[in-house]
């Protein structure tokens, strides 16, 4: 036995991964179909929302964040917020020139 046991060794069933994969592929195809129909400025928003949903699946299930020490999820949220803040500030600057 390993002397230092860090966290629970959560075993995710194979099935879960296959369900997530099916969901991710469905979202990809939805994204492709929706952007083919021209929705104007909405297209960008929809494509990015779908990409965000897909990333949350990858982060939570594939990257085990859902089952891992909460410290990791908090740090990831922190980095995403930092990125969003920088993007917002940069765009505010360009939009108001």
């Amino acid at each position, binding site marked *: 036995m390993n002397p230092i046991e*860090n966290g629970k060794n959560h075993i995710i069933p194979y099935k879960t991964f296959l369900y997530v994969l099916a969901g991710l592929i469905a979202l990809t195809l939805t994204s492709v179909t929706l952007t083919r129909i021209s929705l104007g400025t909405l297209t960008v928003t929809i494509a990015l929302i779908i990409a965000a949903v897909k990333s949350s699946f990858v982060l939570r299930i594939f990257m085990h964040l859902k089952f891992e020490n909460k410290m990791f999820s908090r740090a990831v949220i922190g980095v995403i917020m930092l990125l969003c803040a920088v993007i917002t500030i940069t765009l505010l600057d360009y939009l108001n020139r």
Partner: protein
Amino acid sequence: MILVTHRDDLTSKTGMWLFLFTEMLLFGGLFIVYSVYRYRNPVSFHLAAHDLSVAIGTINTIILLVSSTTIAMSITAIQKKNKKLALLLLGMTIVLGLAFLVNKYFEWGKHIKEHIYPGSSVLALRGHGDVLFYGLYFFMTGLHALHIIIGLVFIMVITASILRDKINSENYVLLENSGLYWHLVDLIWIFLFPLFYLIT
């Protein structure tokens, strides 16, 4: 006598995540450059994106999603002491990663044949916006492809370690870390794909 080596899996994973954060910021910076250039050249970005093949982009997206699933499943396999299945799943991940690169090769090859690449005089004639779009396209997908290559080497090393039982059901944090890296590469592609191929 039982040899007990000191090991700290939580710290190992923390180190990997910290590295992944620097990667997120690296690509995040590039996405900001993309947003600003797109905002300043909406028409040419719109038209230039039409030249990219949505079909190849979609196939590559699905290839990466499946490869992410196989590497994630290989962790379950190693936890369940199923070494053969873990090796098979990692082998599939490597093959899928290579397939992604082959597609990328044909995609880039087609653009280069049409004299569309950074620094090309034909591209320069198409205007400033196109130069920026393709500059970003080649740089961002190129940097992403470099990450795929590094990820593949990482996974090959891990596969060899599993073969030699250095990574087993008691000690698989390195496999988890290689998985994290591969998923990050997938995550970046999830954003690259709509931004370059879909939003036209």
